[in-house]
């Protein structure tokens, strides 16, 4: 078994960007870096097999059909799902908007959708848009001590009997993870459980059919894949029941001036030319992620070192200080704006994020304007943590 140092070196050597320009990249919850295997897969497709899918009979079209189908197969296998249940989207936000629109169409005044205050805006705003349009109500559970929407959700499920629960598997500021099996067992059978896996999948590949979720979405760019690709998974019967939200070529069986007939899954929910080369990249990333279980201990060890170091800094407070270990560590410094701390860190070649992290309701709930978030990946190492702690100490001295 590799030491933690050797392990991080093993991952780090696979990231060309870090080899070319050594940098302390700890903004992985915003966007992760791409391993050579992913870059090579995308380049190979674009160099040798580029064509449109499901439309032509020439060799480039056939090659594109094959790689796109293979990509879906690979992603499905990684998540233990059926191929027809894997819908490629433009990303997590696109997937959540599709679901909010489709599910929202059947909701009406009196119906309730349950969210948490810890949700990313992409899992709040689409529901707000639909709630305004359709007249149903949104209810927000407070995050628990881990920063995830958890215990209060259970109480609210019983009280509100919601039609939909839409929740982050792992939250993007606190880094807490929800027990989906517990939620699935607690909810009424007819309540749909929508899960935002954007921060979970970069660290664990979920067994989606066994997860308890009815729908699950995540983005490619946060799990070491290109931008512009995401996955919406749904139980087959739930996907079949979704009404159309967007339409176009590829998603239909036939079209006339009088109407159309939809295509079968998954194409029915993928109108337009699909994101073929990003999907190829995502498949390569899913293969790469298959190794990640081996890195979990090292990543959590680094996070723990970071938390301990930040606790020693004056005027510095961890958010969700008693939470279980997580690759996401967020903190504030009394009287200092998060952006200013990030600026000092950036000056020391450290990439982190500061602000409200597209989680404004959470910031309001916590009574803060923003925070600094450090988010780890397998290619981070002790030198990265040392750099963050040193620069944070400088920032506190300079800015207080």
């Amino acid at each position, binding site marked *: 078994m590799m030491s933690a140092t050797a392990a991080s070196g093993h991952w780090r050597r696979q990231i060309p960007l870090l080899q070319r320009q050594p940098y302390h990249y700890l903004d992985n919850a915003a966007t992760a870096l791409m391993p050579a295997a992913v870059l090579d897969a995308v380049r190979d497709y674009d160099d040798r097999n580029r064509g449109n899918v499901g439309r032509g009979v020439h060799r480039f079209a056939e090659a594109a059909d094959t790689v796109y189908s293979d990509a879906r197969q690979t992603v499905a296998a990684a998540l233990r799902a059926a191929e027809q249940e894997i819908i490629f989207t433009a990303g997590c936000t696109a997937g959540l908007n599709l679901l909010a629109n489709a599910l929202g169409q059947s909701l009406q005044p009196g119906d309730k959708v349950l969210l948490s205050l810890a949700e990313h805006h992409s899992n709040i705003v689409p529901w707000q848009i639909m709630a305004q349009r359709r007249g149903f109500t949104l209810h927000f559970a407070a995050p628990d001590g881990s920063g995830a929407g958890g215990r209060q959700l259970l109480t609210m499920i019983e009280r509100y009997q919601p039609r939909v629960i839409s929740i982050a598997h792992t939250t993007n500021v606190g880094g807490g993870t929800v027990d989906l099996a517990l939620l699935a067992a607690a909810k009424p059978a007819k309540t749909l459980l929508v899960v935002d896996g954007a921060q979970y999948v970069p660290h664990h590949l979920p067994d989606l059919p066994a997860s308890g979720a009815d729908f699950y979405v995540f983005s490619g760019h946060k799990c070491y894949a290109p931008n512009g690709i995401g996955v919406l998974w749904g139980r087959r019967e739930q996907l079949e029941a979704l009404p159309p939200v967007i339409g176009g070529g590829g998603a239909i069986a036939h079209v006339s001036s009088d109407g159309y007939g939809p295509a079968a899954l998954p194409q029915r929910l993928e109108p337009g030319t699909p994101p073929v080369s990003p999907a190829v990249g995502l498949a390569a990333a899913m293969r790469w992620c298959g190794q990640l279980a081996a890195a979990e201990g090292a990543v959590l060890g680094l996070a723990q070192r970071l938390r301990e170091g930040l606790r020693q800094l004056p005027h510095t407070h961890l958010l969700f200080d008693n939470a279980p270990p997580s690759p996401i560590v967020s903190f504030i410094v009394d009287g200092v704006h998060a*952006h200013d701390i990030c600026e000092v860190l950036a000056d020391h070649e450290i990439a982190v994020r500061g602000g409200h992290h597209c989680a404004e309701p959470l910031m309001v709930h916590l009574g803060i304007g923003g925070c600094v978030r450090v988010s780890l990946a397998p290619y981070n190492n002790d030198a990265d943590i040392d750099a963050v702690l040193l620069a944070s100490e400088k920032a506190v001295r300079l800015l207080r």
Partner: protein
Amino acid sequence: MKIYHDEIMRLAKCRDSSGRLDDGSHACLQNPLCGDECTLYVRLRDGLITAARHETRGCILCQAAVVRLIQLSRQTPSLAAMAELARAFDTALREGSALPPMLELFTPVAARRSRHRCVLLPYQALLQIAESSAERFLEPRA
């Protein structure tokens, strides 16, 4: 830290223009990237800014920018002139051209696109006040 030079830091720590004006005009703007929030209050008469204050929850650059704006409004109280300065500041940052002389202290920020909105927020608030104010049609009396 080029952008956090002494003059910026000094302005950011200055508190003598903090506070509200209960009569007059105000505009509150936010920066969705970082959560900066700046409320600018001005009292206007005959096209002149007779008083200005701010309530700002923001980064050092935003704090420095609003304090500088209020300082300049005391030197050049014409609302029209200040609005023109705000537009020139915005244009210069966007185009990468030289900043107006009175705002040269923000020159290191010019190379940092992600921080432009931090310094522009108070000036955009002033523009909002100017554009919604009837006073904008008035030339200041000599």
